[in-house]
């Protein structure tokens, strides 16, 4: 089983294929059993490989499954190889475990859906593609997974395609991701050009040992910088970072389990995974890391601010996801890769939990996600409320919950990092400060969400209120499991400062475990850790307290006062800072204009008028000309034929040219001599005009003649060969100089 990693992505893919082909024939029970068992089986295989196979080989690069050599040409050889090392193994567990839970949840959530098989087929397709992305050992394999999850994401966002908005949201996600994919490809090509390989371990080895990646490429920056930057463009597209984040909030148009699985827990973290995977390359380019960290920090703050003003349950969570992904990018961008992955790990639990709570709430509220029409749901949805509380405290960074530890690890790294060197040393404190702001914002908007939805009086209609009910067991079970995860996931990486209290030394479990894949963890002074922990605890509590003051038990006076005081700002935040409109103006409109010009010039004029119209015009003119000859009178045709035949005969009857014409000059004597086999038949007559007066000077049946010139000069002899039988002739000339 150990080397059979291939079954991990294969089983869900087979499930997807089966459900697409034959799903319509089966009952819902069969459909969800097939889909869930496929993912659960790969979860079991992953667990087995991770806990029993991997520990023995984790220092030697992990478990490898060389499935087949995919293609080769020239210097390029691409193998379809899968590898589970500490990093990909962890991701694999997250994907299969949370994937299984969400399949189970979907059984309840999608129970009334008509297109049941299609939904589960797409979910399975997503899981298969995501596992390929994670396990891929060569960049092209990763890229297939990368595109596969993009496809599944597109299909699932637009799952209810009958509504135009959902279909457009799917397209928006796909197109925005294409921009990122372009960056991914360029990055891959740059790495291939520099190292001659697309195998990730070989590239990382080249980064650690050789100088291939440090050579300057453009603008004085190294190959590693540009490759890292372009790969980050891909990562920013997939993981919804500035400026490519706009698709993720719209992606909430898909069913809620999809939002939880794809657009919160797994797919959107692929960018973070990619940066961590290529850690050795990024270590060569601190400037690229700085860009990653700054973009991540700005996204974290920016998305948190937008999150303040959103009134849709899932939109708040979507911006929260964008913001938390920013945290992860700061983690990897400060070369604190283990912390970034740690946050990815904990976030997967609590954010999936939050989304599933959102689904449960919307299920109870008749499908509406408008939090201004909610409130007081704590009494009606006890299980959902408890799970939400846990996940809310975790994401807000309240101590002892998982989010606290992972966020802390990132903040520690941001303040302590020394990866940037002197010129960029300001980056660490800057992103650290921004993250504290974002953490405050996170605590605030998540608490706002909690207070508005679960506390105070219910603001929904009478009719809706009557139908509020707790969700079925298949939905509650995954919620509870995720809540447990949201508490316990933090245990994977207790910070060294706390470990010391329990008499343990050294780095956290997770960091030690990930070290072979992403490099040794950062050494951070324990005093600094305690300081950051204290600050972030205060930040979290202040955020929650502030939110209580504004929204505890429903909208309160300070909230109204704030809106009245700064109506412009609130409206701007509610409109997501009108970034979509800005893109429409700055990017889309010029692009449309450009397309229109190209369409008018190239399509309408060049192709339609000139290339196609030109040929039809030519054919038309030629047709008019030739029609004149097409008299229909057969005798006229025959006459033309007779004339043509006569011309052919006349041409054929001309004397053939001699094989060789030699002109011999001796002093002033010129001798012309021709080799002509036809001369022996006696029918030919040769005339020579030496002096150029137009009359022959010598003539006779022999193909040669001699002439003596009076003076030196440039001369020309004209030879006429005449056939006396047909009265046909050929004329040729030769020139020569006399000295």
């Amino acid at each position, binding site marked *: 089983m150990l080397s059979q990693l291939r079954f991990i992505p294969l089983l869900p893919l087979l499930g997807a294929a089966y459900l697409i082909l034959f799903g319509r024939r089966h009952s819902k029970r069969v459909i969800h059993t097939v889909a869930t068992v496929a993912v659960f089986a790969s979860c079991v295989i992953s667990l087995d490989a991770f806990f029993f196979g991997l520990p023995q080989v984790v220092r030697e690069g992990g478990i490898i499954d060389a499935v087949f050599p995919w293609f080769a040409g020239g210097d390029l050889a691409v193998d379809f190889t899968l590898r589970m090392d500490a990093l990909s193994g962890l991701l694999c567990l997250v994907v299969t475990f949370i994937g299984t839970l969400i399949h189970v949840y979907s059984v309840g959530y999608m129970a009334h859906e008509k297109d049941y098989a299609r939904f589960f087929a797409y979910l399975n397709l997503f899981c298969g593609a995501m596992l390929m992305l994670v396990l891929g050992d060569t960049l092209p394999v990763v890229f297939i997974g990368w595109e596969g999850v993009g496809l599944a994401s597109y299909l699932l966002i637009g799952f209810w395609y009958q509504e135009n908005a959902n279909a457009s949201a799917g397209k928006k996600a796909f197109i925005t991701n294409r921009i990122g994919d372009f960056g991914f490809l360029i990055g891959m090509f740059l790495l291939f050009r520099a190292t001659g390989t697309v195998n990730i371990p070989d590239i990382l080895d080249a980064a650690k040992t050789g100088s291939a990646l440090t050579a300057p490429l453009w603008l004085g920056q190294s190959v590693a910088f540009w490759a890292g930057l372009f790969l980050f463009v891909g990562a920013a597209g997939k993981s919804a970072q500035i400026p490519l984040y706009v698709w993720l909030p719209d992606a909430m148009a898909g069913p809620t389990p999809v939002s939880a699985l794809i657009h919160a827990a797994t797919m959107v973290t692929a960018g973070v995974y990619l940066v961590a995977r290529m850690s050795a390359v990024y270590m060569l380019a601190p400037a690229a890391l700085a860009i990653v960290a700054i973009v991540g920090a700005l996204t974290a703050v920016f998305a948190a601010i937008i999150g303040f003003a959103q009134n849709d349950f899932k939109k708040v969570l979507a911006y929260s996801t964008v913001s938390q992904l920013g945290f992860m990018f700061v983690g990897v961008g400060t070369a604190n890769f283990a912390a970034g992955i740690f946050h990815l790990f904990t976030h997967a639990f609590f954010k999936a939990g939050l989304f599933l709570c959102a689904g449960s709430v919307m299920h109870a509220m008749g499908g509406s996600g408008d939090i201004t029409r909610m409130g007081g749901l704590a009494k009606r949805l006890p299980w959902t409320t408890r799970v939400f509380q846990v996940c809310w405290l975790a994401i807000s960074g309240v101590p002892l919950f998982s989010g606290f530890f992972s966020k802390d690890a990132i903040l520690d790294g941001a303040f302590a990092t020394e990866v940037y060197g002197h010129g960029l040393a300001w980056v660490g404190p800057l992103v650290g400060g921004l993250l504290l702001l974002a953490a405050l914002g996170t605590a605030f908007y998540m608490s706002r969400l909690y207070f508005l939805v679960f506390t105070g009086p219910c603001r929904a209609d009478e009719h809706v209120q009557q139908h509020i009910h707790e969700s079925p067991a298949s939905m509650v079970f995954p919620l509870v499991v995720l809540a447990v995860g949201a508490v316990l996931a933090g245990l994977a990486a207790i910070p060294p400062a706390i470990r010391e209290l329990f008499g343990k030394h050294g780095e956290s479990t997770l960091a030690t475990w990930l070290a072979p894949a992403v490099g040794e963890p950062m050494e951070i002074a324990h005093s600094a850790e305690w300081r950051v922990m204290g600050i972030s605890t205060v930040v979290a509590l202040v955020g929650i307290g502030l939110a209580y003051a504004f929204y505890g038990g429903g909208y309160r006076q300070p909230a109204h006062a704030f809106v009245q005081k700064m109506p412009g700002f609130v409206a701007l935040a509610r409109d997501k800072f009108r970034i979509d409109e800005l893109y429409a103006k700055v990017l889309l409109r010029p692009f449309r204009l450009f397309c229109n010009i190209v369409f008018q010039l190239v399509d309408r004029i060049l192709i339609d008028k000139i290339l196609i119209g030109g040929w039809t015009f030519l054919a038309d003119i030629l047709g008019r000309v030739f*029609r004149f000859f*097409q*008299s*229909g*009178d*057969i*005798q006229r045709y*025959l*006459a033309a034929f*007779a004339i043509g035949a006569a011309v052919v005969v006349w041409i054929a009857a001309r004397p053939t040219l001699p094989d060789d014409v030699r002109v011999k000059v001796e002093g002033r004597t010129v001798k012309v001599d021709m080799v002509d086999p036809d001369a022996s038949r006696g029918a030919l007559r040769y005339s020579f005009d030496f002096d150029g007066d137009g009359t022959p000077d010598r003539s006779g049946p022999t193909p040669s003649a001699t002439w003596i010139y009076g003076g030196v000069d440039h001369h020309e002899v004209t030879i006429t060969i005449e056939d006396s039988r047909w009265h046909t002739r050929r004329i040729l000339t030769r020139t020569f100089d006399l000295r």
Partner: protein
Amino acid sequence: MPGHFYILVSLALFFIGTTGVLMRRNALFVLMSVELQLAAGSLALVAFSRGLGDQRGHVVAFFVMALAAAEAAIGLAIVVSIYRVNRKIDLATIDELRN
């Protein structure tokens, strides 16, 4: 009789035939003129064959006869069917394929 006499007769026949093909309006006469051309060709073949002492010309002349018979059969059949449709066989008026 000198050998080139046959050739001269053949030439004369061919020119008469060609003139007939190009000038006569009646399809039957055109067909007959084609027969004249073929006869001229056969005569030239036979004449050269005899003059050069080579029997191959005779052989080809027989082929020409077979060809002439076939051509006459098909040509007449076409003329007859044209006549059935048009009630006349004046080539100047048969110009359905004009323009």
